[in-house]
């Protein structure tokens, strides 16, 4: 029953997309300056059916309706309700439906709230959005239908991958999808702007809220994924330069570039074509990311749903999309012949773009090069964290420097500012104190630490200045402060992290340089959907003589049968103590990974600050537009 209803709703949504495409094409030709009411009505109806289809899938999951293949494969009656709900988008088909829902919701929202008076621009944006909706709906119906039926109806489902049964991972995909799909709006708007030839300020104002929202969600989505990897994968790392992580980072770089370029566009200083290129590139990167994740051509820790036929579809779609975007771009792109003054705010923004595109290129090359090499020559190579660290780290220094000085330059100006001021003196002092405390020898690391301190100091001075002047727009300052702190804490964390790997039997004690680790006890527990072996460890610090209890687990989930290693983390403000244990087969020896990770919470908070800036800017937008 639910299956048929779901299918019908999806098909209705698809038909309405065709109707909307037809209406938009017809409207585009008329000279009428108003969008007819029927377009608004049909959009709302489409939104209703699209959301309803998702609600139906949700209901099927909540009531464990195993007549749907999708529910059978990914759910189980014994699963807690929360994970039954999150299971809806914890698989490829369901997450695609969620993706389409966000796409439809955003198209409708754009139609209703965009204040731009240019009818053709709005109609064309709607047209491109609906072409995207049609393509994704057809993909859903033909290749990845969450409503496919199963007969005879099984009594029990196969269950959800236990690694995915986690609160952080339950909200992680929706967050990232808002980011990914949000970029479709400015993709469509960019193409529409080219054809309808709207001016730069209207384009900037139309897409700015979408860029801010998608950037914010993308940032938070990456953060949540990273926190999840930190405590769930059990290795103590939070970023592995894994292909799937990279594919969420690639659109982020372009979004960040776009976020800055829009500021230039808003002031009619230039970059019209460039903003359009970036808009197209962002969505292209989002789809590329999806392709890389779903096709399974990459070896990753995060690949839970992959199938080559999906990859082929997404790849063909990607090719067509890029081809048409380039075609439209070259056919309609206006000629711009702008020169920028060297020491002006816009030049620094262009420099930001230069770095963002460079970072994007590095991550893209690192992710795709092994695939190409394998296809062409058959030789397999790996590109892992050492590659990215080696190439990217030196470039953080000029980036941090540009972020420090750039924002204080004026628009369309060529006034050179002096570096020698109080901020530099304070930064050098702070750095010397840090250097004394850390005593790190690496020149590169010290440079990075210095420039991140410099950025943090500068932004704190800026913050004080703007609060004194009662300037409400502090979004840039908050974001840059967040970034400076992020880089600083990542490196301090890196320098001070302690890691010890060793084998222990029950009752034994291990002495490391700073700690004594005692394996006290081992107990078995039986929980609703898994059994677990819990180890009791006491860790005493040799310096402070304080003692901690840590209880890592080895869990055996029954549906499907999976073994997971749950890290035990004792977190206080400044430092995390992290312990994982795993059994070595056929012995009573356990392999213990003991880690002390300082400033983890500060890393998370820095990213939150970074994203907070974006959302502050979103709410201050109206005020900024007036001045």
């Amino acid at each position, binding site marked *: 029953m639910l299956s048929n209803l779901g299918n019908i709703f999806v098909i209705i949504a698809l038909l309405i997309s065709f109707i909307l495409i037809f209406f938009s094409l017809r409207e585009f030709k008329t000279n009428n300056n108003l969008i007819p009411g029927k377009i608004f009505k049909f959009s709302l109806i489409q939104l209703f059916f699209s959301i309803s289809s998702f609600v139906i899938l949700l209901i099927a999951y909540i009531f464990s309706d195993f007549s749907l293949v999708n529910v059978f494969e990914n759910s189980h009656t014994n699963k807690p309700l929360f994970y039954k709900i999150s299971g809806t988008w914890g698989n490829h088909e369901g997450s695609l439906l969620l993706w389409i829902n966000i796409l439809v919701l955003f198209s409708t929202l754009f139609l209703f709230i965009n204040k731009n008076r240019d009818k053709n621009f709005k109609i064309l944006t709607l047209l491109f959005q609906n072409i995207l909706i049609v393509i994704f709906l057809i993909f859903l119906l033909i290749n990845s239908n969450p409503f496919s039926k199963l007969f005879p109806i099984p009594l029990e489902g196969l269950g959800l991958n236990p690694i995915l049964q986690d609160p952080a991972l339950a909200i992680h995909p929706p967050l990232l999808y808002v980011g990914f799909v949000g970029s479709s709006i400015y993709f469509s708007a960019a193409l529409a702007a080219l054809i309808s030839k709207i001016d730069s300020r209207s384009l900037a104002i139309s897409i700015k809220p979408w860029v801010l929202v998608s950037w914010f969600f993308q940032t938070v989505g990456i953060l949540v994924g990273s926190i999840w990897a930190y405590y769930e994968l059990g290795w103590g790392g939070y970023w592995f330069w894994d292909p799937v992580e990279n594919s969420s980072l690639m659109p982020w770089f372009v979004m960040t570039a776009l976020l800055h370029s829009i500021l230039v566009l808003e002031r009619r200083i230039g970059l019209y074509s460039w903003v359009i290129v970036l808009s197209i590139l962002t969505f292209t990167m989002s789809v590329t990311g999806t392709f890389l994740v779903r096709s399974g051509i990459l070896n*990753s*820790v995060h690949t839970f749903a992959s199938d080559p036929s999906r990859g082929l579809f997404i790849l063909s779609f990607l090719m067509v999309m890029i081809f048409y975007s380039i075609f439209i771009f070259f056919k309609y792109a206006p000629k711009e012949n702008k020169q920028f003054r*060297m020491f002006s705010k816009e030049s620094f923004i262009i420099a930001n773009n230069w770095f963002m595109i*460079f970072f994007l*290129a590095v991550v893209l090359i690192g992710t795709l090069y092994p695939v190409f090499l394998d296809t062409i020559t058959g*030789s397999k*190579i790996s590109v892992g964290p*050492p590659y990215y660290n080696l190439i990217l780290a030196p470039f953080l220094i000029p980036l941090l420097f540009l972020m420090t000085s750039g924002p204080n330059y004026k628009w369309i100006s060529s006034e050179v500012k002096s570096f020698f001021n109080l901020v530099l003196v304070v930064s050098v002092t702070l750095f010397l104190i840090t250097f004394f405390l850390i005593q790190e020898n690496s*020149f590169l690391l010290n440079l990075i630490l210095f420039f991140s301190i410099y950025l943090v100091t500068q932004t704190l001075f800026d913050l004080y200045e703007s609060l004194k002047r009662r300037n409400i727009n502090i979004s840039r300052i908050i974001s840059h402060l967040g970034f400076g702190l992020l880089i600083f804490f990542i490196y301090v964390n890196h320098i001070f*992290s302690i890691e010890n790997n060793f084998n222990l039997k029950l009752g034994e004690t291990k002495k490391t340089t700073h700690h004594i680790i005692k394996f006290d006890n081992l107990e078995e527990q039986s929980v609703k959907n898994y059994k677990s072996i819990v180890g009791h460890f006491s860790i005493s610090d040799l310096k402070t003589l304080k003692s901690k209890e840590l209880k890592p687990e080895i869990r055996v989930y029954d549906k499907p049968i999976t073994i997971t290693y749950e890290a035990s983390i004792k977190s206080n403000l400044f430092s995390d103590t992290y312990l994982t244990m795993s059994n070595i087969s056929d012995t009573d020896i356990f392999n213990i990974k003991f880690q002390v990770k300082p400033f983890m919470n500060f890393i998370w908070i820095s990213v939150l600050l970074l994203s907070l800036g974006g959302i502050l800017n979103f709410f201050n937008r109206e005020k900024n537009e007036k001045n």
Partner: protein
Amino acid sequence: MKNIISSLLLFFFITSVSYGNEDVTDQILKNLRCLVCQGQTVSDSNSEFALIIKSVVKDKIKEGKSEKEIYNFLSDKYGDWILLNPPLKKNSYVLWFLPYLLFILGAIFLFFLLKKPKIRP
């Protein structure tokens, strides 16, 4: 000029290798892919494969082999796929140099885009 470039390259290379304070064995294990796992390093895995590699690396260190010799030994046996830090070879020139080339191209582009400041009298 050549000396400056090579010493610069060496400088970045050294700083990246001397990252952090883990001992050499751990550092090596972190740069090896666990071939039977999904995207894990040997250091992070407890699969049989990882355990074997761990003991092999420990033995080689005891024998007094250098980091480079160990990487060479492992890549001869398992192919370059096991090395997370791709070695600079004919087939990885593009991988290592294309990013820098793109960065320089960007700089040239910016050079023409930006007007030089006029000298005020």
